[in-house]
């Protein structure tokens, strides 16, 4: 099957290694991976902030880039959630565009959801070993039902020991522009998350969305924790030994 990898704008800019880890996982699962070179952003920042026209323009661009693939996979619950659950709202009442948006939504998946439920991966190529705790990012969890999938994939790795933290489903405080507009409240929420991470014996907190990663890592470092690693689940699943 031909899978279009939507790297996401944050991964492209901040953490290319997550994109390569996703690529490795998809290829290992037997997919023919296509990475459109013109891809940029899915439009979520504008959509969440009420700036519909920019979201709409970027959605049209992304649909054109990916609709020829059998599947669109993104290493992000919030970007996949944008395409899968919100694109239809951008094209409400429009026949042709709405059909194209719906068709793409139907074949759009968050990475771990795709690996576990579509590619039905039994064995991942990674060789990570260590104690981890898992943060369930909001959009993946509540818009796409991503909860068991990353845990099932991680459970297949003999070196990984998962220790759940308290309130792993509670928001880390990122919320896109919220983190800048309400920086103080956002940081206080991140602090609560970091305190729960610190209460475990985990060496790394693992999650599936880069926005939350930057938020949690930023707060961990500010509170003086330079040791706890903040890893994308794709990095763990594809880790070189």
């Amino acid at each position, binding site marked *: 099957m031909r899978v279009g990898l939507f790297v996401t704008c944050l991964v492209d*800019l901040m953490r290319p290694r997550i994109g*390569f880890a996703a690529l490795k996982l998809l290829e290992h699962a037997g997919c023919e991976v296509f990475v459109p070179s013109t891809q940029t952003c899915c439009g979520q920042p*504008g959509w*969440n902030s009420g700036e519909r026209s920019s979201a709409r323009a970027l959605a049209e661009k992304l649909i054109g880039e990916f609709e020829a693939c059998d599947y669109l996979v993104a290493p992000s619950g919030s970007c996949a959630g944008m395409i899968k659950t919100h694109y239809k709202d951008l094209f409400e009442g429009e026949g042709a565009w709405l059909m194209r948006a719906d068709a793409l939504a139907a074949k759009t998946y968050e990475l771990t959801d795709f690996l576990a439920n579509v590619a039905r991966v039994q064995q991942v190529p990674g060789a990570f070993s260590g104690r981890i705790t898992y943060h369930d990012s909001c959009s993946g969890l509540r818009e796409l039902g991503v909860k068991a999938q990353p845990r099932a994939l991680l459970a297949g790795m003999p070196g990984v020991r998962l220790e759940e933290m308290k309130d792993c489903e509670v928001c880390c*405080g990122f919320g896109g522009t919220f983190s800048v507009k309400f920086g103080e409240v956002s940081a206080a929420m991140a602090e609560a998350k970091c305190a729960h991470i610190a209460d475990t014996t985990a060496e790394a907190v693992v999650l599936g969305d880069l926005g939350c990663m930057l938020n949690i890592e930023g707060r961990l470092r*500010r509170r003086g924790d330079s040791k706890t690693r903040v890893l994308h689940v794709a990095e763990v699943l594809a880790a070189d030994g």
Partner: protein
Amino acid sequence: MQIQSMHFQARAHKALADEKLQSVMKRFGSGFVDKRAAARTELGVELFETLRTASAGIRDRGLANLDVWLRRFEEEARRRGATVLWAADGAEVRKLVLEIAARHGLKKAIKSKSMVSEEAGLNEALEGNGVTPIETDLGEYIIQLAKEPPSHIIAPAIHKDLQQVSDLFAEHHRRPRLEDIGKLTREARLMLREHFLTADLGISGGNFLIAETGSVAIVTNEGNGRMVTTMPKVHVAITGIEKVIPTLEDFATLMRVLPRSATGQAISNYVSLLTGPRAASDLDGPEHMYFILVDGGRTELVGGDMQEMLRCIRCGACMNHCPVYQTVGGHAYGWVYPGPMGSVLTPIYNGIENALDLPQAATLCGACHVACPVKIPLPELLRKLRERQMQAKLRPWSERAGFCAWAFVARRPRLYALATRIAARAMKLLGGEKGTISRLPLGSGWTLGREMPVPEGKTFRDLYAARPKRGN
């Protein structure tokens, strides 16, 4: 009630610096959430979810023909001897209650909890016109003594700790200071007893209006609601027009999700259905029963793209599950309704320009939506309000310009590749050896309480384009 919602930032800042409040909110965080989760599990998750869907359907059925059900309610309530009055806004609520007090010569009002009377600022109006209002819900009683607004719709004094209540009671009751919750509660009962016996006006809210019987349903835990509605000569039930539901059968279904979502109880301690004033054969009950049905901005939601908000049954689950509410408490929101439902209702009822921060003060995490017993898509409604702000040019020009610039660049892949290539390098340089940025230009909100991790230095697209091709 005076609206202070334009000052969310400042009030949130104050709340974060308030150590006492922070320690109360830390405990609050899991209390209601855990209780609801346990009640849901006990009932059976599948059944609970079925009931949520059914409850949303019941509310939608009532709202789809709101005028019809309200007229039916009015007919049935009148047939049973009650008087039904209509109020367009808070000012009319105050006027109607004062007229009732004057007509019957009423001097003391005992109240069971009514958020609509908070919307109307009723207590101040009563006090100013020779009628003494006494809140009889324990939480409301505490905040009335403290002269504070509620910070939660079902636990109005949730922001107070034991020490603060002890101090308040000692000061106002002029008795030895108590520090035992049981004893404090008994003292409040003792103080309230005399008011129950001497009041001539009882004011209640209403959880539901039942159209087919003309009844008001009141859900309480303390028993004060029973006394407020049956002991005084006159009972006035004040509630929003959206609270009407067609049948008693509907009420039974909604009662399976309301207490469970609110406090985790299978059923509240008291469930009262009040239908008309005392009849000739009744041993007790009020001589006169009035309904004041309030619009207060609700009709603006009818038939629009945010009508789902009117499903709300005021259980408080959205604020209980909201990580922002859990962090800053209810007073930061600046009006009667806090948390996600308040962030939707406050701008709609008071004008979008009077509560600019509220729709923005959410991470859209969705915890409220999945907890809501009537499935109100609160994050989507908040987003729609953000869109209205943007359309009305109520956001700073720099924000609007920022999004337009972002979209302009992101639609031009070559320009975007160049811009991100520069940004990735510049940010990496800015981070230096430490690898994080402590003061971010254009993003000082972020670095107020956290570092900004730096990029790896090259973009994915550049690395991907330069990757060694596998031979095949």
